């Protein structure tokens, strides 16, 4: 009985969680310029409008560039830190790891303004895509570490010892045994970092120079009511892409578990 009540609550809560996501395609295919009910008719105009907006294309290109580079760099840094944390003891390990994971809980605006001050006021650097990348690597790395920690922990240490015992060096052991086993974790770290960077707005808003990223561009559009349906269309595309990426990431995570011969304990991140 109690479980029935909880079940109903869970469904209502899921509705609350999904409300915006469900509305998105409704307005994206609605032929009214006003974002409100009742829906008036079906159209795909807003999607064509997206195709004819060069500024958006530039923003998307920027964002993808930033997201790809950030994902790769964050994952590389994540591999180093996660490997160090799971395999070795070093002085002040907890402190060091805590500090590296700090951006996970730090208000993003703090990260944004402090980096802005250093880059603009202290170093006098121009704001470019690379300044956004620098910041995104910083905030994606903790996510990458969280994922990769799990991946590295799942490897039975005896496997690496066995490889060494059979004549491999440290490096070839990593290449032949460790790397293939954490590969799924690496892929899901790449995908998740990519998604975070692609969607990040608060920091990007501070760090973009002349070329806005996609969220910054969307932010600009939100002020113009006439552009809103196109934003809805764009949002729909993004939702579909994000979900596809997430499913891919989850797929690799599970495959990793299977490969490591482990049972799924559930849980993303």
């Amino acid at each position, binding site marked *: 009985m109690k479980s029935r009540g909880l079940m109903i609550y869970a469904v209502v809560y899921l509705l609350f969680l999904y409300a915006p996501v469900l509305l998105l395609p409704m307005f994206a295919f609605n032929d009214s310029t006003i974002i409100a009910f009742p829906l008036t008719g079906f159209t795909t105009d807003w999607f064509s409008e997206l195709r004819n907006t060069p500024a958006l294309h530039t923003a998307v290109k920027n964002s993808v560039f930033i997201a790809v580079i950030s994902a790769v760099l964050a994952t590389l840094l994540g591999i180093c830190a996660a490997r160090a944390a799971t395999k070795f003891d070093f002085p002040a390990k907890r402190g060091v790891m805590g500090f590296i994971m700090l951006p996970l809980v730090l208000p993003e605006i703090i990260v944004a303004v402090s980096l802005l001050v250093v880059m603009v006021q202290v170093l006098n650097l121009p704001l470019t895509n690379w300044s956004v990348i620098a910041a995104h690597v910083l905030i994606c790395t903790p996510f990458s570490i969280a994922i990769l920690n799990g991946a590295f922990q799942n490897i039975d240490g*005896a496997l690496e010892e*066995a490889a060494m*015992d*059979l004549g491999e060096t440290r490096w070839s052991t990593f290449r*032949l045994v460790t790397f293939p*086993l954490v590969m799924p974790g690496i892929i899901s770290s790449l995908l998740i970092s990519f998604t975070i960077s692609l969607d990040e707005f608060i920091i990007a808003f501070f760090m973009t120079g002349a070329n806005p990223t996609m969220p910054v561009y969307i932010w600009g559009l939100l002020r113009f009511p006439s552009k809103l349906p196109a934003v809805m269309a764009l949002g729909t595309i993004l939702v579909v892409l994000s979900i596809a990426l997430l499913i891919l990431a989850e797929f690799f995570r599970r495959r990793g578990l*299977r490969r490591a011969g482990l049972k799924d304990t559930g849980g993303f991140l």
Partner: protein
Amino acid sequence: MTKPLIQLKNVTKNYGDVQALRGIDLTINEGEFFSLLGPSGCGKTTLLRTIAGFEDVSGGTVMISDKDMANVPANKRPTNMVFQSYAIFPHLSVAENVGFGLRKSQMSKVEKNAAVDQALSMVGLDGYGSRAAHALSGGQRQRVALARALILKPKVLLLDEPLSALDKKLREQMQAELRNLQRQVGITFILVTHDQEEALIMSDRIAVMFDGEIAQLADPQTLYRRPNSRQVADFIGVMNFLPATVTSVGDTVTAHVDGLGAVSLSGDQFAKDVQTGTAHVGIRPETMSILQESDTGGANVTAAVVEDRAYYGDMTYYDVRLDGGDHIITISMKNLVDRAVLERGEKTRVAWNARALVLFND
């Protein structure tokens, strides 16, 4: 025949404050089946891993074939290991696992495949080569681990509790197979176990370890019959201990044992440094017998009362109180057809043999 292969000299290993090994001196010979036996935490695994090269020693030297191993990493040592968890690479097939160590060898591909096939058939896994590693049973994983280590023809095979993950029946089967395999390949095996039975069954020689030190190193029979301390005696099987007073020392030792009276011990029944005074005498349950009325008994017979008994089908274990003392000892008897099982409180006689006694200094 007994050519030394591995020599440890005063090997110590500390983990911070924990002294895992406290000065181990040990020589292991070529072609020997050697076991390290001891309770949990006594340092068996640590000792094995210092030989494999996974742990640096804190002091002392490890020599293999007269070469100091101090600066030789694990991957350059002529040892291979079978891990307790087997450490089968989950992303590789059975054949790839077994052939893993051949990657850098000069063999041609055909030769390598032949070697893998041969190793697989040696452990009874012919035709399993293309199987995925995670689709194996516990016993099969064990065999893959063995084949993978033996394919490199190491001088020493190290096995850390290789059978502890298997169920009892499979364990017994693998004990026999391992022993046969060792005879067949002639490689030195060093087995870590905390199962005394397993060690006794399989080994040529056994080192019993307590608390980072080797307490006794001997062949199974000596270890069982002539343990050199109460601790070892207690760890290997069951032994009764009776207080005694040593009255004279020499080629033979005489002592007065509570419940048994004056005994005379010879040769290997006591340590060289035995002194007069209080001591203990140990005697195994199966070396004594409960006499029936018709039995005449031998030279040494003592009256006793049955205090308790446990019937095990093939055996009965009696706890008896010896006359003229309050010492209860355990005696095991085979349940033969014409032998009655005694009940609690029954009076009886106990026969014992002075050759079965071992004297321990206090």
